């Protein structure tokens, strides 16, 4: 026996989550490329659009709660709805990172860009790709893909560490670079956190399929310490 109306509502909820994820992934790519493009208009647009993302996250959460109250889903259906709520929250936070990078672009304004900024589009593309693929894995209920995506977080961490080392070196050379370097470090941090949140989404995929809440293992000492 199928539950046509309920299944339709579940599918609609997932579709909205995917649409939101697609939007957020695009915003991350846009934000990560802003600094090299120096496009203030686009930066302002990313900042404005964050409100739409917030509204959609709240709408998804509200509709999920309605589904819980009216349909009383159980077992895998219950885990699915719980995961939708959780993933929508992750997407909202990731978009906050995109907004933060857009703001940094405006703050740096017309300053000559420091060299490490060139790594940021690469980080953004990587993090956005991971996000898109995590949502596809969620739709497929693909636990293997979830674990594999988590491993890719190491690549983003490596890129972050490279940006960090370069920026710290620049600050040591010339303290006048402190302001921009700090802003760029924060932008890189936002992209590194984006990949971390993708790991959280992967944990939710595993929970949806298996019912097990797992904490993905993290490398120790992700933030590099100054080398003597």
């Amino acid at each position: 026996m199928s539950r046509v109306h309920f299944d339709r509502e579940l599918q609609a909820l997932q579709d909205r989550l995917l649409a939101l994820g697609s939007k957020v992934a695009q915003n991350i790519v846009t934000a990560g490329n802003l600094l090299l493009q120096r496009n203030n208009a686009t930066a302002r647009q990313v900042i404005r659009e964050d409100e739409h993302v917030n509204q959609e996250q709240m709408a998804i959460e509200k509709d999920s709660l309605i589904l819980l109250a009216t349909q009383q889903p159980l077992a895998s259906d219950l885990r699915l709805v719980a995961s939708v709520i959780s993933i929508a929250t992750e997407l909202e936070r990731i978009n906050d990172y995109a907004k933060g990078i857009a703001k940094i672009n405006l703050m740096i304004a017309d300053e000559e860009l420091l060299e490490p900024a060139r790594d940021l589009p690469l980080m953004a593309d990587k993090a956005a790709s991971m996000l898109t693929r995590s949502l596809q894995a969620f739709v497929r209920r693909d636990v293997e893909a979830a674990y594999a995506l988590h491993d890719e977080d190491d690549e983003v961490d490596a890129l972050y560490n490279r940006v960090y080392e370069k920026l710290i070196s620049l600050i040591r050379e010339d303290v006048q670079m402190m302001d921009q370097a700090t802003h760029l470090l924060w932008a890189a941090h936002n992209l590194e956190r984006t990949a971390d949140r993708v790991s959280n989404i992967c944990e939710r995929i595993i929970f949806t399929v298996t019912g097990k809440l797992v904490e993905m293992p993290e490398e120790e000492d992700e933030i590099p310490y100054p080398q003597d």
Partner: protein
Amino acid sequence: MIHIRDQERVSSVTAAGQAIALEAQNLQIFYGPFQAVKNVNLAFQRNRITALIGPSGCGKSTVLRCFNRMNDLIPTARVEGAVLYRGKNIYDEDVDPVEVRRQIGMVFQKPNPFPKSIYENVAWGARINGYKGNMDELVESSLRQAALWGEVKDKLDQSGLSLSGGQQQRLCIARTIAIRPEIILMDEPASALDPIATLRIEELIQTLKADYTIVIVTHNMQQAARASDFTAFFSVDENRTGYLVEYGPTRNLFTNPENELTEQYITGRFG
């Protein structure tokens, strides 16, 4: 004849150290030549609520009635295997079924108070079982335990039939409690009641488990999820014989069942 009450309480214990109040071992139930239920192995933890769920015809009420030998009243019914209570198989020849039913009481789907006063509904069973203590105190404590005292204390001489459906059911629970059972079996106790009365019964069951072991048959999955500690899911095979599919903590069965059939049933995609 050996009286169950004379048996020392021999509690078997689960691997987790929980005491078992009642246990079905390789239970088979027949109506004439037809096997209604097969191969049931189930242990009910003391002072916990276990729900039996499953589609119509899976034998959950039939299984429930085995636990206090109510099936003896059905001429064609036959039971094989064992139901262990206090270390004794209640189907042994030397066991008094009346005594079994005193210690393992039952509440039925349709409230069935006696056509007597509220007071007598509670007192009568205790009296014929030889209760010699203060009957007024027994009636009050039973009605209090059944969360009914406040509503009836000023009209104990009125007929039990004058009460609402939900009150009548609580009166039946008080009547059962008055003869001091150890285990209470409930066969869809709230299915004839309105939602408010249903929730009151569920609240009452939660309170009662401190003193009793409760087994409840329900066709309402949300009720099983709300009101029980453990759930046993029954289904039927191709011969329409009922069998136990899965048994475990309610919180696990309703969030992450192990058996695909259980998943299908509780998500409403069964059949």
